[in-house]
């Protein structure tokens, strides 16, 4: 819908004011969108007929009212009192056809009183008159006029205009965040956010009934049962995993969707390389894998790309290379934790994530070439995978995963295998090493250390919990959509606030506390994300992302708010309007700047889309 405005004025009126209003209307609605008699009526044309037609077809009438509006004549009479007066004719016709009339008072003139108006123009006294004064910013005043015109002409379209801008801001903020994420900048912010959550949040017990059970060899077990020896004695380990299988069978958990994750490096090393005990352990693990899927830690030396022959034999004995030996080979997964794991589905190579996939019944392609680098068992494979692994290491900051997460189910290894134990009946069981654990969590490739008594098994259980109970969190499209939604809500609320301030500027002092309250509510969006992350640990990373997006949205919305307050309305335009403004008012730097910013923002949104796609 295009606006068609009728500009009603007295020719003897203040020419600069009429000219300024005309130019702004031209810039805003185009020359063809404004009827200005001097330029729109051709010579010889019947002005009365044309004016009647234009008034009838226009969207609104802008009435410029100054000290000369009544048209005082030398004899003391007034033109406005003449029924054939053009200005009177225009306004009467507009009123007759129900057209919105927007009067603007110029300079110090006072709006007319009923006594100043002829009978058929008495309706004007009931209208609110805007002001245009050379003493104030003309840009700001005419922008308010334009906002009122839009409001009068478009009605609900006006709201749509605001919402469109809010959507634009949402897209822009989300794009910026995703681009910064690709560049690694947001990771730092998100890590900081996660640490903030850790600082303020108490340890929580997850409520999910199917939360993974965490079974850990504690210090006492390590000392008393395993003799404090590493690598762990395979003969002893075999006894426990055989018992874990028995407990699983008793609990009816022999199920392809009930994985066991072993977050302990069981690679036997040279000492046990060819022993009967090792064969016994392999047999026990295969038997467990035949009952329920087993996802094991890739040997540390292989992950460190210094794998020995014995470690490689260990992997090939139990791993995917064991095809033909059994239907369910033990799966090896990296123990490395990618903080972005839950936000992109491509790196599902960690124990917890693989467990979640298995629990969800996902079909994993274990023969995919990319999986070779999860646990490369040969020297050649290690060489091929080294470069890619280095990149993963560089992006690794597991501090963001140290969350206030206390597993509700689980216990020590001995307790887990006791006859009658129900721990093995959990859908997911993470077996790990709790011995020797300490609070300093070192971060690869960084000197930074983080203090938290969290074991690797708890981290893997957290990932498994988050990924399995909320698999949608891993979908990047949904994540991007959620980001846009958060940004849209935030920017809509902010735009509403700005608009309310702009419209009710005269009542600003009265509404100040209301505005402050609403403003504090907006600050609550990131805080709300903190709350979500606190009470739903699995949602930490999406909440973190949303918080960052919300902050970015607030920043961009603040810029829009400045424009709204300055100009009295939304100054944002699509390309056509922005281009028209720049053509009609090439001397105005703001028009050029707006057009340039619009172009840049468009490019940013396009790049953000590419970032999501990539």
């Amino acid at each position, binding site marked *: 819908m295009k606006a068609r405005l009728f500009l009603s004025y007295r020719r003897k009126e203040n020419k600069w004011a009429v000219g300024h209003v005309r130019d702004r209307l031209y810039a805003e609605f185009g020359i063809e969108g404004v009827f200005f008699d001097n330029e729109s009526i051709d010579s010889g044309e019947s002005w009365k007929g044309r004016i009647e037609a234009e008034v009838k077809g226009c969207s609104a009438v802008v009435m410029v009212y100054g000290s000369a509006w009544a048209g005082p004549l030398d004899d003391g009479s007034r033109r406005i009192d003449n029924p054939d007066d053009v200005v009177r004719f225009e306004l009467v016709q507009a009123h007759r056809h129900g057209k919105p009339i927007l009067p603007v008072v110029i300079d110090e003139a006072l709006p007319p009183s009923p006594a100043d108006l002829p009978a058929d123009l008495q309706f004007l006294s009931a209208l609110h008159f805007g002001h245009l004064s050379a003493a104030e910013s003309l840009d700001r005043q005419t922008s308010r006029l334009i906002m009122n015109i839009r409001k009068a002409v478009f009605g609900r379209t006006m709201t749509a205009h605001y919402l469109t801008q809010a959507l634009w801001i949402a897209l822009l903020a989300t794009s910026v965040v995703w681009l910064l994420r690709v560049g690694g900048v947001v990771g730092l912010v998100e890590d900081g956010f996660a640490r903030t959550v850790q600082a303020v949040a108490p340890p929580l017990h997850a409520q999910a009934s199917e939360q993974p059970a*965490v079974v*850990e060899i504690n*210090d*006492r*077990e390590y*000392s*008393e*049962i395993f*003799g*404090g*020896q*590493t*690598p*762990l004695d395979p*003969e002893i380990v075999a006894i*426990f995993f055989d*018992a874990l299988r028995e407990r699983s069978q008793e609990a009816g958990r022999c199920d392809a969707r009930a994985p066991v994750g072993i977050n*302990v*490096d069981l690679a036997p*090393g*040279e*000492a046990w390389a060819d022993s009967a005990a090792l064969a016994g352990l392999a047999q026990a693990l295969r038997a467990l894998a035949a009952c329920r899927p087993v996802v094991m*830690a890739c040997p*540390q030396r292989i992950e*460190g790309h210094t794998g020995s022959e014995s470690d490689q034999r260990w992997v090939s004995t139990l791993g995917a290379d064991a095809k033909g030996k059994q239907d369910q080979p033990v799966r090896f997964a990296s*123990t490395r934790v990618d903080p972005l794991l839950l936000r992109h589905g491509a790196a599902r190579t960690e124990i917890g994530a693989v467990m979640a996939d298995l629990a969800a019944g996902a079909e994993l392609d274990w023969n995919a070439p990319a999986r070779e680098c999860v646990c490369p068992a040969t020297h050649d494979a290690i060489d091929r995978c080294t470069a890619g692994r280095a990149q993963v290491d560089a992006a690794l900051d*597991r501090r963001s995963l140290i969350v206030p997460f*206390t*597993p*509700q*189910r*689980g*216990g*020590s290894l*001995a*307790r*887990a*295998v*006791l*006859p*009658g*134990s*129900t*721990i093995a009946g959990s859908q997911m069981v993470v077996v790990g*090493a*709790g*011995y*020797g*654990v*300490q*609070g*300093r*969590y*070192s971060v690869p490739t960084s000197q930074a*250390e983080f*203090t938290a*008594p969290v*074991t*690797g098994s708890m*981290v893997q259980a957290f990932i498994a919990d988050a990924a399995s109970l909320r698999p949608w969190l891993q979908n990047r499209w949904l994540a991007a959509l959620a980001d846009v939604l958060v940004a849209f809500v935030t920017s809509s609320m902010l735009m509403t606030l700005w608009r309310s301030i702009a419209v009710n500027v005269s009542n600003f002092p009265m509404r100040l506390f209301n505005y402050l309250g609403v403003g504090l509510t907006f600050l609550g969006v990131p805080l709300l994300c903190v709350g979500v992350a606190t009470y739903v640990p699995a949602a930490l990373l999406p909440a973190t992302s949303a918080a960052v997006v919300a902050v970015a949205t607030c920043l961009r919305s603040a810029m829009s708010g400045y424009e709204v307050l300055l100009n009295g309305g939304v100054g944002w335009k699509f390309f056509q309007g922005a281009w028209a403004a720049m053509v009609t008012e090439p001397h105005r730097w703001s028009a050029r700047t707006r057009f340039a910013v619009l172009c840049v923002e468009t490019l940013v949104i396009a790049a953000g889309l590419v970032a999501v796609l990539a």
Partner: protein
Amino acid sequence: MFTRGFDVDGRDRACGRACRLAVACALLALAAQTPHAAPNVVPVTERETINIGYQNTSLPFSYLDARNQHVGYSVDLCAQVIADIERQRGRPFREVHPVPVSSKTRIPLLLAGKIDLECGSTTNTTERRHLGLAFSVTTFVSDVAVLVRGGPGAPQRVQDLQRSQEPGLPVVTTAGSTSARHLRDLEATLPVPLRVVHAVDHGESFRMLAEGRASAFVMDRVLLTARVAALANRAPGDFVLLEGTVSPHAVEHYALMMRDTDADLKQVVDKTLKRLMQGGEIERIYARWFQQPIAAPAAGTDAGMGLQPLTLDLPISDELKRLFRTPSDAPYATPAPPATMR
């Protein structure tokens, strides 16, 4: 072997006391909250089959004789326990299944439910009780000694062990035994750490010493004494028990071992042993294994070491007599240091 210890997630191994305490508290809280054993497990005493863990080479507590039968002091005690259980429930077990265990495997097998009662030479310790194990009243008391090969230059005292340790040769003990812990305590008092290896059972430990693959065998004195006494064709001075003990607090209270969740079994075991102790019958059983000739171990259990029937001639110690009079299932407690006089 492992560049970063055993924690596969890249954490530093060094841990302060505070953080260890925090983790311990977290795990304890976890264990306390977790229903780890279902109440509907059939009690051992009500089952038709009971699995008894016996050691093959723990002379004279539990070992295989020439007929490949498990015999020994603890085996006899367990036989009395089983008889009492059967008498109490009014019917015999359909099967009493003997399961060979070693010092290394006895605890895992018990926790995993592979055996229900272990009858050997197992020390009652606080640490093991915290694992979920329960012990009967004490059946024997021993200290920890060091056995070396005799000959010129052989050490005479435990304190000389390190000085005289043959270059490149480790000290051996049996995996899963409390001696391993005592050795760690001993190491802490020495300026240079000992090199310690763990053999799979007592027979293998002794064989390593006899074959010159270890410089000393650290184990409970009674087991070392029995091992040397059983050697055929030995010359006096081939093996020497060093003077002194590894630690004055290395006092081993042997007991029968079971799971702490099997309260009914523990009740019957203690009741039986107390009956034997208070009736004096346990002294007759003791005399049979420690003061009278006993059967030679099976040849296959010591890889041709040539074991023979033997007599240990080991009288009941005063401490054991006291414990027979006042049975207790408490582990040995390190005496509190005397109060400082000012």
